């Protein structure tokens, strides 16, 4: 059964060498524990020996120059990275105490409880309502009343309800870029994930929309654990509790955001945040 699952395109090249069952105790307050994660695109190693302990109900920012592996890393957390056919990984990522690379782990289950917001707003070419209802419907919720409630709750949660409540059945492509991105966040909220991964969610947005998304991130951390990749150091400083600095595929430093930005312990971190490169 599972063998066929593995054979599906995109997953079939993933060689997850689980050498021995790691006995690392999952701490109760951890969303993710990453142990010795390595990742290759073909021959090129993109992540080198990454170790991170990401806490629940916190905003964890991931920063670093272009090509440092930060985007690859966040896509590994819900195994979206495996859509690239040549990807290989080893090491482990514990989510709720279970290694997500385990053979029996269904990516669909993982992605149901780990939502993702992408760099470019990517609503479906459907109505606002159908966009938000897509996730619940996919997972078998068909009741109209329940869906209505989920849609409203999610749109409110993403602070966009007031702007779209009168045009729920219009095509989502009519919204502005910033509204589209918040709609995508609402779409993610609709399946009530534990963790929300955000891959440079404001890189395509104007400053005002960016601000709205940042405020939203602050509100969301009450209920969700958020991991956000950002190119913008001010953004990391504004929104996050913890920050990880990636360089050439390695985690250089991972600490409380204030510490990283005021008193980094690694010279390279200091050079980066003071704008000497990147």
């Amino acid at each position, binding site marked *: 059964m599972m063998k*066929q699952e593995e054979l*599906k395109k995109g997953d079939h090249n993933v060689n997850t060498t689980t050498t021995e069952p790691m006995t690392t105790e999952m701490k109760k307050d951890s969303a993710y524990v990453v142990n010795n994660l390595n990742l290759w695109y073909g021959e090129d190693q993109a992540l080198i020996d990454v170790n991170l302990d990401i806490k629940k109900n916190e905003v964890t920012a991931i920063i670093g120059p272009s090509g440092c592996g930060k985007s690859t890393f966040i896509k590994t957390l819900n195994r979206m990275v495996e859509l690239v056919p040549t990807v290989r990984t080893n090491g482990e990522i514990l989510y709720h105490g279970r290694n997500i690379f385990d053979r029996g782990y269904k990516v669909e*289950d993982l992605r*149901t*409880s780990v939502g993702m917001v992408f760099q470019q707003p990517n609503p479906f070419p459907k109505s606002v309502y159908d966009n938000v209802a897509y996730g*619940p419907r996919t*997972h*078998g*919720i068909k*009741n109209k*009343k*329940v869906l209505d*409630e*989920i849609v409203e709750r999610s749109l409110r949660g993403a602070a966009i309800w007031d702007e779209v409540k009168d045009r729920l059945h219009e095509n989502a492509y009519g919204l502005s870029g910033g509204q589209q991105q918040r709609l995508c966040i609402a779409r993610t909220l*609709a*399946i*009530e994930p534990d963790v929300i991964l955000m891959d440079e969610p404001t890189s395509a947005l104007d400053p005002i929309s960016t601000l709205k998304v940042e405020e939203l991130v602050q509100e969301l951390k009450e209920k969700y654990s958020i991991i956000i990749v950002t190119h913008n150091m001010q953004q990391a400083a504004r929104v996050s509790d913890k920050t990880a600095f990636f360089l050439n595929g390695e985690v250089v430093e991972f600490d409380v955001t204030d510490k990283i930005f005021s008193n980094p312990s690694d010279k390279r971190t200091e050079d980066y945040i003071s704008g000497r490169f990147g």
Partner: protein
Amino acid sequence: MNEQKRELSIREMIQQNKQKKYSQTNVFDKVMPFLLFLSALVSVITTIGIAFTLGFELFKFFERVPVSEFLGKTEWYPMSADPRFGVWALVMGTLQITLIAMAVAIPFGLASAIYLSEYATERARRILKPILEVLAGVPTIVFGFFALSFVTPILKSLIPGLQIYNALSPGIVVGIMIIPMIASISEDAMSAVPRKIREGALGLGATRLEVAVKVVMPAALSGIIASIVLGMSRAIGETMIVTIAGGSQPNFEFNPLNAIQTMTAYIVQIAKGDAGYGTIEYYSIYAVGALLFVFTLLMNVFANWVTRRFREEY
């Protein structure tokens, strides 16, 4: 829905649903790829089917007629008391049609392609390309009617020795039919030549003509060759125009003014005539069909190979 149920968290609902309906989703995800794969296999099976049916009946034909006669002789009298099956008589008919057609299609097709890709403004292109598309969409039966009832009478008034059924008229019309094909494939190839290369030459003071002939055409050569080869393959396989306007007299003689019979027209003639299953004529259409299939397949394979290589270059 009662209040209690609505209080359920979505997360839990999804979990419950998963337990219930996972099997169903799973079935789709397991079965569909396989069904889709099967539909992709249909085309492969079609090719095998063609090769197999042609091969099988061809074998029966060769039990009755020696290969040496089929491929070595030039007389084709399948229905006479002393039947002859020298396929070259039919091949000659097809060859005449193809040569005449290409003589029409290559100059006009390439000229159209060059004009569209190098000279025409965007607006002109938007008006002109649909004309070619319409021409490409005209059914062959219509072209056949046109050849017999319009082109042949005109040609007859110009060339006194022309027979009513001849190779010239259908040849020209097959050529007209192929113009859009050569024009559009060549134009695609020429338009794919990067702007930089064109601008480089124009910047040195070359005229558009010089750029087209000396820069763009050589760069797009493989695409142009592919278009011509595909056009030839179409001409060889074209059936209705030659059946209607070409006649039914197989002749190993190169004279476009006389009636001919092509390979395709012969197949139609026998199929129409209700040749009984198991007769020698019945099997002969498969032999001719097999030859036709091999000719066109080789040309298509060649053309596709050329285009594939050319795509890699940019």
